Structure formats: structure tokens, C-alpha cells
């Protein structure tokens, strides 16, 4: 089969680093996608939940008789029906409550033929409450004699974390400068466009099928089972397309067992779906906290120590929110080279809504503090501010006090690239000089960075993933994987990796990843892990298939396997790319020969990280990464409005896999971070949410999106797929402190409690001016 070859044939094209559309994009853009929220099953009933609507109360009387009698109502459940079905991180939650501990506590649930009947039934339920004094801040909850929220959690104490390393007293003594501030990161919520929804159905053998938005289908079974009193093995989880998750679906929330319990009682499928108002009130929040942080350094700009004392508002129940110190402390101890650390965090139960996990997972709050203190110190030391950052930035091979091993670390390159691209040094100096001159509009530039796990996070016993890969008679590939797709784009990554290894067009790859009875185990979509973990799993499986195919091709062609390659749907000669045999044909030959052979391989990939452990001293991620953001803003010093003009990003991405997905994740992540920084704010007054709608809860909209200048720094992570690292949380983490630092650069004010809303900024600037012009001679601090 000798053929003439051309130069273009010999060049092996790589998929890695290309820009590919998500396969689900056309259907989503045209409205064809059937989200879980759109699903209707035959015989399906609608479930609705009666919320308490008060923060703390005893239920004196509960009468459901009238609701039960309403025609079209099939079941009414209350706390009595679920006694003992405890679930949650510390088993402090039940699907339906016998005492009210927060505004959205689920008191009763109905299943009815239609939503209108279900709604009417809720109105017929009679409840008498005896209100109890509430606890609405963690400080109040921690006070002696504070009202008790759970009988079995004395002092309202929830989770506690500590990490210490080095001699603090010595480090303090060696410090020339110490900054000491209290930061108060606030409550925000995910605002998924698809509201919370679950559809449950039991068969007569007692097996539950639940259609859910979960991001962690396998551990989800384990968490859901106790809320239903059934064995996790009797749960099948199906994940239809979802309208966003961002961490909000990394736990079981009461509406899910409620749907299942109603389905069990009625022997019909039951769907529970929140309205937007219910979504605002009853879905989890980002953890709010009070962070007392101190950072010290010497005159020449060498960091000496960092301490953090964190008090967290647990809310009424414990989901994943109060576990964020696990990530926070890695930032406190590892954001720059910190020789001595002292970290403490205590979560206190309150009658507020409770926090779950949310993109950035504690690092949003931690970096809000660490990155601002770095900026403060940069103004105090005797060296150039950028020099100060570079001096303390870790390099490859360093190990943090918590034993995070920074194998391929390009923090320095990130800092240098972002600073050069934005002309940071010159502008920072120039804007600071303008700060106290007259003029309504002030420009500012701010640098912030952080470190985050980029190779999974071994918070469970395993951080692995199972993959099954098959190639059919038409050379179409199916990857059956535990990796969930919740819109983040793992589908394209898997398609590209298969295409890279097997030389098939990416659109010939089908992914099956939405049914726990089919796909093998995975931890879930969280911790910026899926491209890293599932990418490795897919690559390993594809390489097994590749070896099998090339061996068969070698036999068929009488060549050596190592002289062959798979490109453009054919077996080719490695040397010059000459096509020798169509892959499709080979697949059929393998199948229909006397000793038939099918290509179907399995793989279980476990990253080389160590379990988190009780002492928090382990290399818990297989990789770590840094990002630097430089925000350029214009502040209207009278209205307090901050316009973000431009954001320069330099992020260690390991290696670009899908360039378009990467850009989307970074820009989308920043959009979430911008909302956190500037406008999003759950206005919770005495436990009650005052702004449960998009009119009053301000998301960032298209006109506020700044210009982006993105720089992907490729560090080629040895453990990552093709060198890639996880990337998706850092964008959300770093932007807010970058803007805070820019605000200071522009105006000389710092806001410690986000969001930096126009009102807060205007007031701070106004107060600074009043102070500066006051007769007792306030000098404008700069």
C-alpha cells in the first residue's frame, strides 16, 4: 500500500489547545434542551412545600385535615411522618421539621394532581407557632445564655478547625510591619437559572429512581439514603440537563427526600420544583464569616507570619458551608510563602439560612482577606510593590506548611506577566498620587492572587474516577464515565482527549454520564477537579483502547504496532502519516474474525494525592495552581459607583485543553466574582431574607462585564492530562480583592464587608473627606 505522501500528511495535528464548541450549545441556544425543570412523567404529581416563614419557633399545633380532604390531593406529610430520618453532614437535619430553626424550614409537604391544587392544599394547612427568641449573628450565638438552636449542640457550636505551624511569638517579634483587620464576607447565593428540582419515583420492589440536579451522584446516594430510611443501593440517580449548579448541588437538600417520601407514599412519580422566590430563600448560600487576620513582614518585605481567627455563621443546619476552613487554611498557610501560621475557625449555629458549597469554596473568603493584606503590606515595605509580591511568591518544588507540594509552580511568571501586560507598577504609583487631588472620577489599579487545589482534593477516602470506553463497528466511541456534566464543559474535554488518542473526529464520541446504574463511580464535579481527574481517566482508558487497536492493526497489516498511529479516522504509518487502513474497517475486521474481539476497556484512576486527614497536614491535591488578577477601575467618588474597565488575568492552567471552554470558565467565574465584589447581597434581617428576587438581588449583567486580557500560563503538570491543571474556581476567588485593592488605589478607602456597593463606597469616601477636613486636623491617610 505504498502511497506518495505530502508534508501535510506527516504533520500530526493535535486536538489539545484547540477551540471547540460544547456539543450541547446549539440545543441550549435554541431552546431545544429539555432541562429537568421541563420534565413531565406519566402519572406525575406535583409536590409543594410549606415553609415556616419565621426564623425560630415551636410548632404548637399542626392540622392537615382540611388539606388532606381537598380533591386532587394524594398525600400530606409533616414532621411526624419523618421522625428519625436524620441526614446532613452532622445529621442535624430532617426532611420535615418538628421545630422551626430558620425561615425556610420545611413544615409540611403535599403531593397533588396540579400545582394549583397543591398550592391550595398548603393554604389549608393550619399551623400555630410559638415564636422563640432567635440568634442572628455568630457572635450572638456564641454568647453565654444564647437561645439554643439544637438541643444536642450546646453553645450553638458546630464545626471547629485548627492548624498551627511554627513559632508565632518569635515571628511576631521579627516583624517590622503587621497588618491587622477584621473582614466580613457576606451571604450570597448561586442564582442557578434552573431552580432546584427533583423528580422521584419508586417501583414496587422499593427501588427509587430520582432525577436530580446533583453534582455528585454516587456519594449523593449515601447522603440521601438516611433521609429516606432506605439502603443507598436501592437508589438510582439520573441527571438530566441542569441550569447551573456552581456547588449548590453538592449536598442533599430537604426538597429531594421530600419528593422521594411523597413518591413513596403515593406510589406515583412526584416532582418538586422551586419558584424563584423559594429558590432564593431555600437554597444554600455562600458561607458568611468574620475573619480576624494578621499578617507580618520584615522591612525588606519578607513575610514572617499569618494568623486567622474565623467565626462562621453556620446557619440553622450544617451542610458543606462550615467545612470551608479546610480550603481557607490552605490559602492562609499557602498564599505566598508563609513561614509561620496560626489558623482557627469555629462555626456557630444561628437562625439564618445555611451555607452549602459554592465555587471557590472558602478561598473566596480567605483571599478576600489575604490578598488585601498583601496589598496593605506592599505599601508599608521599603521595596517596590511588585518586588514584594515576587519576593514572597513560591517557586517549583516548595512545600507549604500544610505539606502541599508545589511541583510545577509558575506564580512568579503569573505575577510578572499580569504586571507587564497591565503596566501595573506605573499606574499604581500614578493613581495613588492622584488620589487626594480634586476630581470626581478616580482611576485605580489593584493586584490580587491566590492559590487553589488544581488536581482534585482528597477530602474523601478516594478522589478517583471510573471510566468505561468502547469503540463500535463504525468507529464511533462511547465513553461511560462518572464525570458529571453540569454545564462546565467536561463533555468537550472528554471528546477532545478521545479524538487525540484514537484519531477520530470529536463529534464521533458519545458520552454517557448521567445514570448511576450505568456509569462507574466518581467523587463529583467539585474542587476544580473534573478536567484533571476525568481527563486522566479518559486518557488512560483511550490509551488502553489505542494499544488494543494498534496491536490488531499491526497483525492485520503485518507492521509493528509502534510504527503505526491513529489519525483522521485511519490507521496511519507513524513516520509519514500515510493512511493504511480505515479505522472503521479495522473495527469490523476485529469483530467479525474467527477469534472476535471488541474494543471495550475500563479504567479506574486514583490521583497520587494524600487524604486530607484530621491534622490537615498532607498533600491533599495532585496539583496546585495560582492566578493573578489585575483590575483597573474608575470610581465615581460621589455616587460610589465602581466601573470595572479591564481585568488582566494570568493563570497557571497547566496546559490549555479546550481554549474556548477555558475562556468561558474564566470569564464566567469572574462574572460570579464581580457580583460578589460589587452588587450581590442577601439582605437577611433577623433571619428573614428581604430581597428574594432578581429586582433586589443584583446579579452582574452584560453591560458591566469588563474587557478581559487573558494570559494562560502553561506549567505542564506532570500528573495532569497532557499537563493540564484544574482551573475553574480561581477566577471567582481572585477578582474581588483585586477590585478592593484598586478601590484603595483610587480613593484611599477599603471596604472590609463586601459587596463594595455604591452606597458603601460613597459613604466611606464621604466620611474620609469629612475626616480630612475636620477642624481637629485629620490628615488624609494614604
Amino acid at each position, binding site marked *: 500500500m505504498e502511497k506518495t505522501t505530502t508534508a501535510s500528511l506527516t504533520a500530526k495535528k493535535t486536538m489539545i489547545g484547540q477551540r471547540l464548541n460544547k456539543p450541547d450549545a446549539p440545543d441550549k441556544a435554541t431552546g431545544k434542551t429539555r432541562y429537568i425543570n421541563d420534565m413531565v412523567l406519566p402519572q406525575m404529581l406535583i409536590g409543594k412545600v410549606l415553609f415556616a416563614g419565621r426564623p425560630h419557633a415551636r410548632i404548637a399545633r399542626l392540622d392537615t385535615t382540611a388539606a388532606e380532604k381537598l380533591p386532587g390531593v394524594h398525600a400530606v406529610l409533616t414532621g411526624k411522618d419523618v421522625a428519625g430520618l436524620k441526614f446532613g453532614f452532622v445529621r442535624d437535619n430532617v426532611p420535615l421539621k418538628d421545630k422551626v430553626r430558620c425561615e425556610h424550614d420545611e413544615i409540611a409537604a403535599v403531593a397533588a394532581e396540579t400545582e394549583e391544587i397543591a398550592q391550595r392544599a398548603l393554604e389549608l394547612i393550619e399551623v400555630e407557632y410559638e415564636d422563640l427568641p432567635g440568634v442572628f449573628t455568630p457572635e450572638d450565638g456564641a454568647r453565654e445564655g444564647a437561645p439554643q438552636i439544637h438541643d444536642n449542640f450546646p453553645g450553638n457550636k458546630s464545626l471547629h478547625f485548627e492548624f498551627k505551624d511554627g513559632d508565632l511569638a518569635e515571628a511576631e517579634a521579627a516583624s517590622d510591619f503587621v497588618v491587622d483587620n477584621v473582614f466580613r464576607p457576606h451571604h450570597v447565593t448561586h442564582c442557578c437559572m434552573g431552580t432546584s428540582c427533583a423528580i422521584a419515583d419508586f417501583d414496587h420492589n422499593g427501588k427509587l429512581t430520582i432525577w436530580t440536579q446533583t453534582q455528585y451522584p454516587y456519594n449523593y446516594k449515601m447522603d440521601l439514603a438516611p433521609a429516606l430510611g432506605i439502603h443507598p443501593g436501592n437508589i438510582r440517580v439520573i441527571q438530566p440537563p441542569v441550569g447551573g449548579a456552581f456547588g449548590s448541588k453538592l449536598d442533599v437538600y430537604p426538597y429531594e427526600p421530600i419528593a422521594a417520601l411523597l413518591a413513596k407514599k403515593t406510589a406515583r412519580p412526584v416532582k418538586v420544583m422551586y419558584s424563584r422566590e423559594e429558590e432564593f430563600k431555600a437554597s444554600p448560600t455562600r458561607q458568611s464569616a468574620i475573619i480576624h487576620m494578621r499578617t507580618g513582614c520584615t522591612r525588606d518585605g519578607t513575610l514572617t507570619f499569618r494568623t486567622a481567627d474565623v467565626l462562621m455563621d453556620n446557619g440553622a443546619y450544617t451542610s458543606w458551608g462550615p467545612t470551608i476552613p479546610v480550603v481557607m487554611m490552605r490559602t492562609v498557610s499557602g498564599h505566598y510563602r508563609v513561614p509561620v501560621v496560626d489558623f482557627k475557625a469555629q462555626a456557630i449555629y444561628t437562625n439564618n439560612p445555611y451555607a452549602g458549597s459554592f465555587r471557590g469554596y472558602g478561598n473566596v473568603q480567605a483571599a478576600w482577606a489575604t490578598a488585601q493584606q498583601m496589598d496593605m503590606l506592599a505599601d508599608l515595605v521599603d521595596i517596590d510593590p511588585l518586588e514584594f509580591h515576587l519576593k514572597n511568591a513560591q517557586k517549583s518544588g516548595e512545600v507549604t506548611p500544610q505539606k502541599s507540594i508545589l511541583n510545577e509552580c509558575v506564580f512568579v511568571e503569573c505575577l510578572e506577566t499580569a504586571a507587564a501586560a497591565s503596566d501595573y507598577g506605573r499606574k499604581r504609583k500614578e493613581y495613588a498620587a492622584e488620589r487626594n487631588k480634586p476630581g470626581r472620577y478616580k482611576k485605580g489599579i489593584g493586584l490580587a492572587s491566590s492559590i487553589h487545589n488544581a488536581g482534585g482534593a482528597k477530602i474523601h477516602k478516594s478522589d478517583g474516577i471510573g471510566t468505561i470506553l468502547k469503540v463500535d463497528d463504525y468507529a464511533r466511541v462511547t465513553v461511560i464515565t462518572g464525570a458529571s456534566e453540569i454545564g462546565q464543559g467536561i463533555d468537550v474535554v472528554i471528546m477532545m482527549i478521545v479524538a487525540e488518542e484514537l484519531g477520530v473526529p470529536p463529534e464521533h464520541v458519545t458520552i454517557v454520564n448521567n445514570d448511576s446504574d450505568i456509569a462507574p463511580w466518581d467523587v463529583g464535579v467539585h474542587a476544580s477537579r473534573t478536567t484533571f481527574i476525568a481527563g486522566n481517566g479518559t486518557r488512560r482508558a483511550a490509551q488502553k483502547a489505542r494499544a488494543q487497536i494498534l496491536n490488531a492493526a499491526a497483525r492485520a497489516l503485518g507492521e509493528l504496532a509502534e510504527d503505526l498511529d491513529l489519525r483522521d479516522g485511519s490507521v496511519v504509518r507513524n513516520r509519514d502519516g500515510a493512511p493504511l487502513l480505515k479505522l472503521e474497517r479495522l473495527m469490523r475486521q476485529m469483530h467479525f474474525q474467527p477469534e472476535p474481539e471488541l474494543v471495550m476497556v475500563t479504567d479506574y484512576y486514583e490521583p497520587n494525592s494524600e487524604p486530607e486527614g484530621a491534622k490537615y497536614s498532607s498533600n491533599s491535591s495532585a496539583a496546585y495552581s495560582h492566578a493573578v488578577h489585575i483590575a483597573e477601575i474608575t470610581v465615581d467618588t460621589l455616587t460610589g*459607583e465602581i466601573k470595572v474597565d479591564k481585568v488582566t488575568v494570568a493563570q497557571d492552567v497547566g496546559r490549555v485543553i479546550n481554549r474556548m471552554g477555558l475562556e468561558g470558565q474564566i470569564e464566567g467565574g469572574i462574572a460570579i466574582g464581580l457580583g460578589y465584589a460589587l*452588587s450581590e447581597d442577601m*439582605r437577611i434581617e433577623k433571619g428573614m431574607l428581604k430581597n428574594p428576587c432578581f429586582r433586589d438581588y*443584583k446579579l452582574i*449583567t452584560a453591560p*458591566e462585564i469588563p474587557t478581559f486580557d487573558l494570559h494562560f500560563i502553561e506549567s505542564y503538570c506532570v500528573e495532569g492530562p497532557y499537563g493540564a491543571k484544574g482551573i475553574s474556581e480561581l477566577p471567582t476567588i481572585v477578582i474581588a480583592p483585586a477590585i478592593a485593592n484598586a478601590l484603595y488605589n483610587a480613593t484611599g478607602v477599603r471596604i472590609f464587608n463586601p459587596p463594595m456597593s455604591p*452606597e458603601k463606597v460613597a459613604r466611606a469616601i464621604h466620611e474620609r473627606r469629612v475626616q480630612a477636613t475636620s477642624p481637629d486636623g485629620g490628615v488624609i491617610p494614604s
Partner: protein
Amino acid sequence: MQEITTYLAPRRLDEALRATADGDATVFCGGTDLAPQTESGVRQYKAKLLSLRRIEELGGIEAEGHEIRIGATTTISEIRRSSALAEIAPVLVEATEHFASEQIRNAASVGGNLCNASPAGDMSPPLLVLGAAVELACWREGAVRTRRIPLEEFFLGPGKTAKLPEELLTAVVFERPVVDFVGRFRKSGPRPALEISTVSVAFGARIANGLLRGVRVAMGAVAPTPLRARHVEAALEGKPLDAATIAAAVAATTEDAKPIDDVRASAWYRSHLIQVFVEEVLNDVRRN
């Protein structure tokens, strides 16, 4: 929610007026206020739902004569695109620029904006400085009866107007402003798009021989109704537009604006913004 048993979408005004003669119908035009209000439960539907959108005589902008007339069902988008209004009353068109989003502007009507009587409604301040009146009609004794009242007297409180339940707002009218009339509008909210005003300010006056004449200043979201800022007006009337006058006008805002704290902004911030905007608007007029 009460069940809607009758839905009416007449083509003629008299049919609509007959349908509301008992004062017992839910009237809507774009529905952009009504839908969120009924959805959130602050307001209930009545059994009879009446749409005004098909009534041709309630739409349209008449800008030829001495009196300018904007039909009640005219959408915010129509005002925004009207070249006649851009020339005659740019202050009104300016206020449509910052109004909601394209989709909402295409549905939202000027009549709905006024009848909703939100203190933050964006059509009110510019119409107040144009000296507008509203035309109200009802069906009585076998005929259509209309009356006019100045817009200022129309607003009674948040969501409350002088319109009787059986009446419909048919048009908003104002005298063609004189050629040397200058007007400005400014609103603020924490976001550039899709934002309810935290506060808003409109200014209108003539400058004759260097002196301000016929000054009208209106404010939104600083009191239970949109209002004319009489103290600010007094500080400006007959004065040259110089730094001293502007300072006096800014100082006078505290007499007119009595804002409250709510979930969107504190009273302090609203008072502060009003001062900023009055100063900004006056400086802008002075410069041009």
C-alpha cells in the same frame, strides 16, 4: 389567587370604559408591573381582566400642535424612538434611555408607568418638569366623560392615584415647550441596566437674559410620590446659573427630599445622591 373568569381585549375605548364602569376590573397594558405584583402576592387579580393594548385611539404620539399628546398605551420604546419627542422634549427621551431593558421597554407603557404610581417611576420626573397633565376617562350616563388633572395632583401615595376605579388614563398631555427650554434627567441605581431608580432628578427651565425662568425640578424615590422640588425651584427661579446659585439649590434639596431607608438604599445615600445629581445636572446646563 382569585380566578380570572372574564378576559376582555376590546378595540374601542368606549367598550373598555363600559367594562370598567363598575370599577371592578383589573386593567393592564404591558403587564410589566401587574405581572410581578400578582405573582408575588402583593396584589390580587379581579375576576375581570381587561387589556388596553388593542385600543388604537389610546396609542400614538401627537406632536404637531401647541399641545403634545402621548396616548396611554404608548410604549417606552416608542417614546425612545420618537424623533419628534427627541426634538421637543429630549428630557423625556433621556429618561427612557435608562429604563429597564429592551424587552421591558417594548411592553411597558407610559400610562402603566404613571398609574402604577411608584415613587421611582421614571416617566414621572420628566413629565413633571414638562408641566404635564393626565387625561382620565370614564363611562357615565351613556357617554364617555373625560377630565384632566395636573400630573402633580395625580399622585397620592405609593401605588395610589386620583384616578377613580371606573376611570382609565387615556393620555398624558403637555404644552409644547418653548424653544429655549432646557431639560435634564439623571437616575441612579447600582447597575447600568435593568435597575429601579435609587433616586432620580429632572430639571427644566428657560434661560432668558442669563436668568433662569419657569424653573421646574422634580425628584423620584425620595418621598411617597414623585414630587416637584419647590424649595430647589425657589432657589433657582430668576437667578443666574452660577456657582452660588447651584450651591443654594443643592442646599435646598434637604427641604424637598425626605427619603426613607429601604432594602435598596438608606435615607442618607438617597439624600446624598439627590445633592450630587442636582449639582451635576445644573453644572451640565451651565456648561452647555
